[in-house]
């Protein structure tokens, strides 16, 4: 029998759970835990410069690997600084465990120094949370935390740990719990066979079908199955922003992604479809536009592991509650050897889709000429080219995020890493750090804007400490571009606080940390700069790329309209 203090149990548990990196920041209430981490060398702690960055780094790792990220912060301000990152993970169903120090149990409720009711603060943005009430509970509670975070519909779990629970003087028996059971938590393991049959019948009879798949296919590790199913049926597929890469984008059957800034052909196909097969997607308002005008002629099959997602905003004709992977596999076996009823109708449907594709081909943006400022779209295309479309691409939030999603092409899942649900500026850079730590051989590119980057730029210091060689592509349009775009469209170009009059000299800033920065002001400077930047996989390089500030993101769905109602450029609309 092994006796350990609460703090040592935490360190030991993390080892036994196979956690390699934890991201955190110390403080009084967490110091016993930090001491325990100091006295071992299996779990590596990465010291960030702001707790929000710790959550985004752990989140980035989780999105890239599919495994839960781990965060350690102190009580009070440490914990509240983590809140934005917890909410970000919650909105995108990302598995994460956040260990928070807390004041000693006997002080709780007294407004003690650095006391915050973090369980209360985070209640609406966690999958679940725990407070440790006795050191001996630690192994089981932590096991439950990882189990909850990573099963069913994943999400962040907060564990609040009063300082006395980790006191070095009190020791209790430690056994790593291999399994946990919770009577109140039994995520579904398969879908209803009758419903799946019904869905497949509709699929085989459909004349204008389209797959609409989301992040649930990625977190549910169902991408291969999905690809098989879609290939077998020969149907078009569009994904959500969160589902990018679940089906290879270079494949002709992929229409790109859909929604507010989704591709013209995706939104048109959705609007005209007679069957929408939604898998692991949640009919978010940034996808559906006005739900009362959504897909007026389509029957809807909706597969999701979370019953509360089904028929939440759009009624499903065939609801299926179950994990994407097993439902898709059942669908594959039902489809196998069967013919679709209307191959000629599907052929016509593809003709229609191809005509939509042709309509917009070559009209998406106007490339720059030598001597001119670059267009943001062509920068992304060049980044895609130099990384062969294989990099991990993280983004912040704004126009650059949408351009990254539109112009980088992903053939693999878990590669496009973006805050879709919460839209958190500041996410991209720390998320890239978290990925690079665990995937040192890969290119990790953070595509950001000068507004977003300034929200988390203190992390340059973390990169310096640990030698984290991410590439930062700053699409510098000198303004909060996306805000400005809305102001152009809805407020007669009254640019209330959407531009920044005092941008730093990014080059000097980056150099102050000992890194290389390259300023790119004209069309012809881009290629050499990219070649220099990507020459060494382990070197952090910052590209400060001045892009045309007048550029808008198109297509853009017209507010309150249907899927097909889009602005296509500053002068065209559907």
């Amino acid at each position, binding site marked *: 029998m092994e006796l350990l203090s609460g703090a040592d149990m935490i360190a030991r548990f993390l080892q036994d759970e196979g956690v390699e990196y934890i991201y955190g920041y110390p403080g009084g209430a967490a110091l016993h835990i930090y001491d325990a981490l100091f006295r071992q060398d299996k779990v590596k702690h990465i010291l960030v410069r702001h707790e929000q960055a710790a959550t985004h780094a752990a989140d980035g790792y989780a999105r890239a690997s599919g495994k839960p990220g781990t965060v350690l912060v102190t009580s009070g301000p440490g914990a509240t600084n983590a809140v934005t990152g917890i909410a970000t993970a919650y909105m995108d169903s990302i598995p994460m465990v956040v260990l928070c120090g807390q004041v000693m149990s006997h002080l709780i409720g007294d407004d003690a120094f650095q006391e915050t009711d973090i369980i209360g603060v985070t*209640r609406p943005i966690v*999958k679940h949370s725990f*407070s440790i009430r006795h050191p001996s509970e630690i192994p089981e509670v932590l096991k439950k935390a990882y189990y*909850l975070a990573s099963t069913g519909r994943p999400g962040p779990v907060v564990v609040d740990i009063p300082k006395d629970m980790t006191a070095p003087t009190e020791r209790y028996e430690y056994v790593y719990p291999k399994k946990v059971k919770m*009577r*109140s*938590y039994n995520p579904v393991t398969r879908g209803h066979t009758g419903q799946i049959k019904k869905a497949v019948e509709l699929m085989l009879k459909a004349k204008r079908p389209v797959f609409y798949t989301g992040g649930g296919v990625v977190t549910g590790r169902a991408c291969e199955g999905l690809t098989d199913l879609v290939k077998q049926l020969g149907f078009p597929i569009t994904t959500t922003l969160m589902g990018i890469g679940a089906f290879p984008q270079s494949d002709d059957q992929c229409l790109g992604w859909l929604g507010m800034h989704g591709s013209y052909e995706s939104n048109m196909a959705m609007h005209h479809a007679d069957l929408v097969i939604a898998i692991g997607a949640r009919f978010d308002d940034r996808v559906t536009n006005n739900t009362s005008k959504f897909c007026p002629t389509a029957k809807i099959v909706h597969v999701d592991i979370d*019953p*509360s997602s089904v*028929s939440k905003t759009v009624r499903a004709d065939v609801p299926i509650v179950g994990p994407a992977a097993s439902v898709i596999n059942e669908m594959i076996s039902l489809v196998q050897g069967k013919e679709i009823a209307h191959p000629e109708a599907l052929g016509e449907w593809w003709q229609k889709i191809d005509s939509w594709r042709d309509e917009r081909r070559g009209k998406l943006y106007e490339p720059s000429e030598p001597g001119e400022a670059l267009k943001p779209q062509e920068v992304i295309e060049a980044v895609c080219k130099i990384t062969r479309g294989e990099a991990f691409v993280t983004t912040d939030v704004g126009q650059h995020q949408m351009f990254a999603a539109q112009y980088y092409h992903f053939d693999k899942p878990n590669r496009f890493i973006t805050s879709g649900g919460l839209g958190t500026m500041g996410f991209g850079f720390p998320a890239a750090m978290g990925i690079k730590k665990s995937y040192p051989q890969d290119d990790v590119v953070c595509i950001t804007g000068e507004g977003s980057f300034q929200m988390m730029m203190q992390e340059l210091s973390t990169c310096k400490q640990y030698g984290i060689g991410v590439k930062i592509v700053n699409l510098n349009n000198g303004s909060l571009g996306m805000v400005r775009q809305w102001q152009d469209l809805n407020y007669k170009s009254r640019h209330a606080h959407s531009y920044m009059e005092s941008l730093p000299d990014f080059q000097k800033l980056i150099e102050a940390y000992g890194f290389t920065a390259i300023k790119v002001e004209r069309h012809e400077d881009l290629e050499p700069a990219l070649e220099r930047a990507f020459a060494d996989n382990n070197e952090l390089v910052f590209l400060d790329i001045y892009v045309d500030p007048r550029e808008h993101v198109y297509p853009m769905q017209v507010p309150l309209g249907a899927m097909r109602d889009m602005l296509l450029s500053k002068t065209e609309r559907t």
Partner: protein
Amino acid sequence: MRHIISILMENEPGALSRVVGLFAQRNYNIETLNVAPTEDPTLSRLTVTTVGDDRVIEQITKHLNKLIDVVKLVDLTEGNHIERELMMVKVKALGAARDEVKRTADIFRAQIVDVTPSLYTVQITGDAGKLDAFLQAMAPVGILEVARTGVSGIARGDKVLSL
């Protein structure tokens, strides 16, 4: 429509606040709420009455089920059920009104559980409608204080809400 949802949940600190927080967070309304431990001390039973169309109620029950602390729940209004609420009311009882209060209490099968020279404390159980009717009847006499427990309920017949 009004629904009565009964929930068995872990008797853990914080469980109640998750349920109540869910209603606030998702903009659902709570008309009444009551909660107490069951014969199994690890479980509490919470009963909530809420109003919403079928779609809203479906979302409420799904989201409640998703809470990790919720073990089981039933929408009692989906089947035959018994609904009860307990109320205590202090009413003025002076002069002629004193007899009037007593008579009305008898009609409603309410009991007078405390008296002073100037007021009666009346206890009454029933469904929410009966309690409302009693309050209406007492209004002219003068209601001084009302304490209601909120609705509790149980299914009729063999159906049992347990683990």
